[in-house]
């Protein structure tokens, strides 16, 4: 079983639309939406939720006011600025402390040091995750609670579940819709995956972000391919991307032209393949073919994975 992650660095380059199309190309696969901050794949893949689960991995400090003697040690030691000192008008007590849940990272230092034992650590429900099915196979997706932390942990959980169901359902591939950026959720989406497909577009920003993603992929020794979306939008930068890919030894798997079908499919809640122009359909089919070949390579190669 091979895990393929689609990522981009920069947001809005077409990751999710392409994942929707690749899932259909794969015919049978397990799809995972690891962009848990702003999940969208469920809007494209018609699915049925089989089970919803709560995700809770964080906790938040709470100060029991009646037990607190107001020593202020928690405020002094907290490195996240999560403890606020309030003036209590009723008792005209100056040292009243409360926790700002948006700043608290749940480390528990205040809980451990409080001489009055006035602090408790409360679990926080930080999201939900869903086991669904589509006509192409299992689909795992999540929704991080609003303004919650720990997206990396939810990503890791989704990927572990995906491997379990893919095994059970005998899927040869897992296709992961990755988050933007290069930080914690991206690293969690990429760790241990077999293939990274970078979707970029010909703009200076997208190229800059792609280069950082390629640096990250090298640290992970990931086998990588590039897809240039909207390649006709700026042919000069498009050629620069091809030159960059050539010097880095990364194959360009396909180039897609700017096509309103992307937006039309999204509005209709359909796969892009239902609305794609002939050129792009062919390009996506080629991209999938190339990925499949690379994965087989990996599986057959006695030395295992090789670098990008």
């Amino acid at each position, binding site marked *: 079983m091979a895990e393929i992650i689609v990522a981009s660095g920069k947001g809005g380059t077409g990751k999710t639309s392409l994942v929707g199309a690749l899932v259909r190309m794969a015919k049978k696969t397990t799809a995972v939406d690891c962009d848990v*901050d702003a999940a969208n794949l469920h809007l494209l893949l018609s699915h049925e939720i089989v089970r919803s689960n709560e995700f809770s991995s964080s906790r938040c400090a709470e100060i029991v006011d009646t037990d607190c003697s107001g020593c202020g040690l928690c405020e002094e030691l907290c490195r996240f600025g999560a403890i606020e000192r309030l003036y209590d008008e009723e008792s005209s007590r100056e040292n009243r402390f409360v926790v700002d849940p948006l700043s608290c990272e749940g480390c528990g230092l205040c809980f451990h040091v409080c001489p009055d034992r006035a602090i408790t650590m409360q679990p926080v429900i930080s999201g939900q995750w869903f086991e669904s099915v589509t006509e192409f196979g299992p689909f795992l997706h999540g929704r991080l609670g609003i*303004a919650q932390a720990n997206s990396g942990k939810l990503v890791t959980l989704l990927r572990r579940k995906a491997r379990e169901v893919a095994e059970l359902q005998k899927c040869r591939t897992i296709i992961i819709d990755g988050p*933007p950026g290069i930080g914690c959720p991206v690293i969690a989406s990429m760790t241990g995956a077999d293939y990274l497909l970078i979707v970029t577009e010909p703009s200076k920003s997208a190229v800059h972000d792609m280069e950082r993603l390629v640096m990250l992929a090298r640290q992970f020794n990931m086998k990588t391919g590039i897809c240039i979306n909207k390649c006709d939008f700026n042919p000069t930068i498009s050629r620069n991307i091809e030159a960059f890919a050539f010097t880095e030894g990364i194959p360009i798997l396909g180039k897609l032209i700017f096509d309103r079908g992307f937006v039309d499919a999204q509005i209709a809640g359909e796969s892009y393949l239902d609305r794609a122009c002939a050129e792009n359909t062919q390009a996506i089919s080629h991209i999938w073919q190339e990925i499949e070949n690379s994965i087989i390579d990996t599986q057959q190669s006695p030395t295992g994975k090789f670098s990008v």
Partner: protein
Amino acid sequence: MRIAFASGKGGTGKTTLATNMAAVLAAVETGISYIDADVEEPNGQIFLSPVVRDIIDVKVPVPIIDEGRCNLCGICADVCHYNAVAILGKKAMVFDSLCHSCGACFVLCPEKAISERQRSIGTITCGRTGKADFIAGCLSVGEALSPPLIRMVKNMISDERTAIIDAPPGTSCPVVEAVKGCDFVVLVTEPTPFGLNDLELAFGMLEEMHIKCGVVINRSDLGDPSIKKRIEEKGMKILMEIPFCRKTAEAYSNGVLNSRIDPVFADMMKRLYEIIGQEVNHG
């Protein structure tokens, strides 16, 4: 005043609006700062080409364990909520990349065997672009945690200035850190189902944080016209609609500030700033 540009969904036009607004304002006002808080993928410098004054190495504390003093009691591993310390065999090990720098192990070690060293996680570039201050955070590739860097970027904003903050996409910790303490957040979206879905999440986040916000619909004529109505139905205020313009998109792709070549767009940015001012004062 602090104004942040955020979005939920990536690629909707946060950086385009933030950089152009900073440039347009700096041409007529003093005391403008552009702050790039999208530290995972900072793009502001592409458009604003700052004259760099200083590049600051940003460091966070991580524990180091004095093996001579450590008696392997394991309290550090027990109290670490992030699994960044573990007792493996006859050695306490620290995993730097998991550490949140909370200091719990350092404070609670009964043998005083833990001290802290400073570890670099990224840089902050300070400079000027025209008459505006330019401050941009850049996370080192391979680092997972951006919030501490974003926090330090924001610590450099001086209160007397008008700060235009370019926030990262999403709705979790990095964005929360970037918009915290802002007077107003501009949510940039596009009229598509993805745009609407992520806009609602970002709006929910700001409601939870009690921060005033308004919506700019970018590429307003590409997509589903019914989405505008749905945004209003959800109780969000639409500040401005910006139609798709191939020239704008081309300028963006070449890293050119659109307001420099398109006076109509420059006027829109001024107008948007006025609308934001009214919203902050009366809205």
